[in-house]
């Protein structure tokens, strides 16, 4: 049984020489929901970009057994869907429907199926009926949801989200959480929002200076105050994760 994501000994340096990733090892099982947390500059976003080949470093990166290399990019990018932090970067077409259809269109699917996927994806994020609208007219929360839909329409096996809850107001945050919890797909979330991570994920990985410094059940990780502090993190005021006891997952 293939791991959903397998990363072994991954190194990466920026064009100017700065080392961004240092011997990263990570294995994500199918269906798992994991959170990657760490201070700014730890290399989290850089790591994400290796998952679909936007960046390529030294080492092994495999998605469901397929190596992330040049001649597999097309397949990989259908299997790994990344929702980036700024929805405006991902909503570049003239209408919402066109944006959601962008992925499937590039996959070469027939028109009828594209329409179906667009419909399903928009429904999944609660934006059905907004297909004709221009991204510019949407609220930030709506844009985030549509951005998620643009990736969902490709029906990926691995869903990757970069700071999904940032800048969302409480209601939008809740709404997005409900959507993410309803999806049965391997999910990797990069976030600072520790409570959000705690609610969504079972496992957490701490990155610091391009390395993975901790990997374990999220309750345990977040309860380790010293571990968090050493890596530039801390729990929000008033938030106390319960070790060993977590809410029933739907």
């Amino acid at each position, binding site marked *: 049984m293939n791991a959903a994501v397998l990363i072994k000994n991954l190194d990466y340096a920026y064009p100017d020489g700065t080392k961004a990733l240092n011997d990263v090892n990570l294995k994500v099982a199918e269906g798992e929901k994991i959170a990657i947390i760490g201070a700014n500059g730890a290399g989290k*976003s850089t790591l994400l970009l290796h998952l679909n080949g936007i960046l390529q470093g030294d080492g092994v990166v495999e998605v469901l057994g397929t190596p992330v290399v*040049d*001649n597999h990019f097309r397949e990989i990018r259908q299997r790994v869907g990344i929702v980036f932090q700024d929805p405006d970067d991902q909503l570049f077409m003239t209408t919402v429907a066109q944006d959601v259809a962008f992925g499937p269109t590039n996959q070469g699917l027939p028109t009828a199926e594209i329409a179906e996927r667009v419909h399903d994806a928009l429904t999944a994020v609660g934006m059905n009926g907004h297909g004709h609208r221009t991204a510019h007219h949407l609220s930030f929360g709506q844009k985030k949801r549509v951005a998620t839909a643009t990736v969902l329409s490709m029906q990926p096996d691995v869903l990757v989200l970069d700071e999904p809850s940032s800048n969302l107001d409480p209601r939008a945050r809740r709404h997005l959480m409900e959507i993410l919890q309803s999806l049965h797909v391997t999910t990797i979330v990069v976030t600072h929002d520790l409570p959000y991570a705690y609610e969504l994920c079972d496992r957490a990985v701490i990155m610091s200076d391009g390395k993975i410094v901790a990997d374990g059940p999220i309750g345990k990780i977040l309860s380790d105050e010293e571990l968090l502090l050493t890596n530039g993190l801390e729990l929000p005021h008033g938030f106390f994760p319960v070790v060993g006891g977590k809410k029933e997952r739907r």
Partner: protein
Amino acid sequence: MDHATNACRDRAQQPSNKRASTSAMHIPDGFIDTTTAAATGAVSLGALAYAVRRTDRDLGERTVPLLGVTGAFVFAAQMLNFPVAAGTSGHLLGAMLAAVLLGPWAAVIVMSVVLVVQALAMADGGITALGANILNVAILGSLTGYAVFRLVGKIAPRSRSGYMVAIAVGSWISVMAGAIAAAFELSFSGTIPIRFSLPAMASVHMVIGMGEAIITTTVIGTVLASRPDLIKNLPQHLRNSTNARRPSFNRSWWRRWGIIPVVLTISLALATIVAPFASRAPDGLEKVAVEQGFAAAAGEPVWNLSPFSNYTFPGLGEGTLATAAAGAAGTILLFSVVILLSRRVGRPRPETTPKEDHPESIHPLEGHEHTNHRHAGHSHQTHNHLSAGQRSAEKSEEKT
């Protein structure tokens, strides 16, 4: 919040359609006759077709998002009115800016699209005049500006100031080239005789050109200081970021040789304005234009040059000299300003974007030319001046 309301008020006061009055380059319908429209249209189409091929080759699949966003930038920047000199206000054309940052052919496309949007959405520039407007602003603006920039760059000192001077001159020429072409187009169409369209357009645009030069120089200066990798084909000695940031105003060079570019430019300016009046050629040009235009009906030359009796319009004699003098003075002023500015802008800045704050400012696609970079994992690629297009071809990403 005070600042917010101030900003809102400012926005409301911001001139919205005012740019129409300063936008002498976007000729409306009716000012260009059918023949000229067809001719300029054909030339523009040809140049655009070539520009697309070239840009596609250079940028590959990054063409669309990059040019689109730059187009949006130029569009937004063109909205700004700025005071240039003594009550005149101008605005940025952006052709030179686009050419330096993206390369001349990409700039041709970007500026053309901006012009199309302005014509269609804002009625700024006529439909039949689109060929002429594109030729003037997008094609001549980008290409002549860039050509002059490269030329001057070769003879200028190999320093930051030299580079800035080249940009300044290129910017000025880019504006002037379009203006002069417009003057001729207007004359060929029989709308405004060359004797007036040329000095009028030339003198107005000398001032606008100065503004363009100043703004383009300072913008490039900023980009050079923080992200020299973004400038296409940046000369080697400026690529090293510390070099780009160092204020390198070479006083001694300017003391010895500075007079040369100044003299050259002044001569060029004078020649542009004075020559048409000194030579007999315009008479010939006018005759040709006349034959195309209305005088075909009248059967005789339409224009003669005698100022009429009781009204001394800035007649030819004085007008010419006054305009030439203004142009010369403007040129000198321009260079003084450029020199002063390149010193101020060249001040080294602290590292602007520490990686922690901007995780997204990594260069995922390496579409720029880097000098020294160690790139783990890409042993099969060479990094010397490969364009992004070539690189993606090598990656054969999309061959499945």
